[in-house]
Structure formats: structure tokens, C-alpha cells
């Protein structure tokens, strides 16, 4: 079960009765029906449908825990904060209380759910990746490097923040199709994403390419013999 550190993880704790409707109104996936014990990923986008961050939501019962990418937190929080207005949404940061890990080629909870055991919370993404959040004092053995994790990502075409998931790309270009709900109501960036999907023209697409291949696009994660690239379609 290769486990690699994810030092850029960021954990925020969201409390209040308006939290799910607030997140639902600002991001691509339908999260209003998220229930205790469930995990779902959604993406915050700009009006031009460019990604601000992809986040994972853990419904902990009393609150929602949001796993996001620390280098993007500044932009994400500046996107979120002015829109809270008078709603019952309170956010605190718990990043410094936790360590974060990725685990691949490993069993885990069924996708869309998470399990907590001995201070370690494990969620399974739709792409078959386990995301681990462990309390700072909880030892988690790592037996894979970040480079090995990225090599696995290339083989399985798994996008990752700061590589494919960046503010230069829209949600479809960086392979986040599963995060874009087909029929939910309006959110920032929805008009563009819906138009791209219904016309079948996303402009760019995440693919795996050989390192010696010429591409009409940009290498986003360079591997030993293959790489991930976002190419024009």
C-alpha cells in the first residue's frame, strides 16, 4: 500500500447551518445532499471557469472538514469570504493540527465515503486514490516518495493541484469532469462549463503522452517515460 506524504494539504473546518448550501452555490458539484460519513470532491471556479481549487468535503456530522491545497488557500479564501455575507458559515483552520498523505494501489472505503480509525481519516476518491488526514501526533508510515506518487498519477491519469489543477486551466481541461455535476443549478463558471459539455468542445484535454512524442499542448507532470499533458483537442 504505497503511502506518500502530501505536505501541501490544507484542512479547514466549516460550521453552521448554511455551509452546504453556501459551498453548493459556489462550486461545480452537487453537495447539498452530502450526509454524515460521506466524502465528495467539488471544484471552485472563476467566472471564466478556471480552477481556483479542487477540494474534498468530509461530512463529520457536526461540521464539514474541507481538504484543500495550501498554496491555493489564499485565492480560495479571498473568493469565499466576501460571499459569506450574513449566512451562518464559520470557518476555522486545522492544517497545523494534521498531517496529510496520499495512498494508492490500496484498498479503502468505497468511493464517496470515508472511515476514521485511531486518529486517521481515510477518504477514497472517484479516481481510486486514498486521501489520509492524520492528527499531528498520529504516526503514519510512508513507504513511497512524492515522485513515485506522481509516477502513479501519470499511469492512471490522475490530476493533481499545482500540476494539472491550476488557475490557468478550466475544470474539463485538467480532467475534473466528474466534479462537474450535469444538472445542478447556477454557480460561478457554470455557463461556460455547461456550454463546453453540451457542445462537446472543451478545447483542451488531459492525456498521457510518451516523452518522445510531439504534442500540441503542455507537459504538466513529467515522468520517466510517459508524462501527463494538457493538449488542444
Amino acid at each position: 500500500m504505497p503511502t506518500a506524504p502530501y505536505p501541501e494539504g490544507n484542512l479547514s473546518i466549516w460550521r453552521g447551518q448554511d455551509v452546504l448550501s453556501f459551498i453548493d452555490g459556489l462550486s461545480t458539484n452537487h453537495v447539498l445532499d452530502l450526509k454524515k460519513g460521506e466524502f465528495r470532491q467539488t471544484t471552485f471556479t472563476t467566472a471564466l471557469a478556471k480552477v481556483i481549487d479542487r477540494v474534498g468535503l468530509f461530512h463529520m456530522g457536526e461540521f464539514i472538514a474541507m481538504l484543500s491545497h495550501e498554496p491555493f488557500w489564499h485565492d480560495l479564501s479571498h473568493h469565499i469570504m466576501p460571499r459569506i455575507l450574513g449566512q451562518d458559515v464559520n470557518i476555522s483552520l486545522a492544517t497545523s493540527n494534521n498531517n496529510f498523505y496520499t495512498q494508492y494501489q490500496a484498498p479503502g472505503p468505497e468511493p464517496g465515503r470515508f472511515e476514521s480509525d485511531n486518529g486517521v481519516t481515510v477518504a477514497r476518491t472517484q479516481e481510486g486514490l486514498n486521501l489520509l488526514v492524520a492528527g499531528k501526533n498520529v504516526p503514519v508510515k510512508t513507504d513511497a516518495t512524492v515522485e513515485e506518487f506522481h509516477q502513479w498519477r501519470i499511469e492512471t491519469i490522475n490530476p493533481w493541484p499545482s500540476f494539472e489543477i491550476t488557475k490557468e486551466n478550466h475544470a474539463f481541461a485538467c480532467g475534473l469532469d466528474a466534479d462537474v455535476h450535469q444538472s445542478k443549478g447556477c454557480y460561478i463558471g457554470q455557463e461556460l462549463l455547461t456550454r463546453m459539455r453540451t457542445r462537446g468542445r472543451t478545447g483542451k484535454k488531459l492525456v498521457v503522452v510518451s516523452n518522445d512524442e510531439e504534442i500540441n499542448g503542455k507537459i504538466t507532470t513529467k515522468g520517466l517515460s510517459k508524462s501527463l499533458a494538457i493538449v488542444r483537442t
Partner: protein
Amino acid sequence: MDCGTCETAGPIQVVQPEVVDVALTISEKAQTMLADAFGEDRSMALLVGVLSGGCSGYMYDLQIVEETDQSCQEVVIEGFRVLVPNASSHLLDGIEIDYVDRLMGGGFKINNPNAESSCGCGESFA
């Protein structure tokens, strides 16, 4: 997961925008429609608020209420009580409440000088 309910993780400070004394107008057509809705009873109020969401990031929220637990400022125009939540007052100063008489997309409409853009349905603005 350590949820950080301990003292090490305080809530993120939300910098609340300054509360603005809202000036607003109601078009004649909208006043006629409000009179139809309220009848003779002027104890009810029109709550004009803003929620997050929509294609452009903010959505208007119009409700007829008697009271609200939100902190609001009250504007009375031609006997109609209009409540504007202080939390969104900076987004609503200078608005005109209008009524558009159309089969599609008709109804109350907000003309907002603070909006840089709005979506086609008119419910969302940025």
C-alpha cells in the same frame, strides 16, 4: 483527523464590509405590484437581501416578511416597508426595485448600479 476545536485553530476572521446607509427606489410599476401583493396591510415588509451563488457569484433574495432575525435597516417608500440586511448593504445601495411585465423572465427585477455584470436571468450579479 484533528478537527482543531482546540485553542490552536481560531475561526478565520471574516472582514465584514462597511455597513452603508442604503438609498433605494421603487418604480411605479413595482409599487403597483407590491400594493397588489400586500393589499391594505402595510405591516408586512419586502426583504431585499443577497445570497452567495448563481452564475455571477451573488444572487438577489426577495421575500415578503413580517419580521426577520437578520440585522437590517428599514426604508419606507410610499408606505411600503423595505428591509435591507446590513451584511449586504454595500451591494444594494442605490438599487431600483422594478417590475418587468413579461411572459418569460417577468417579475420583480433589481437594477443595481453596483453590479459589474449580471447573468441572463437577472437573478445573479457580480
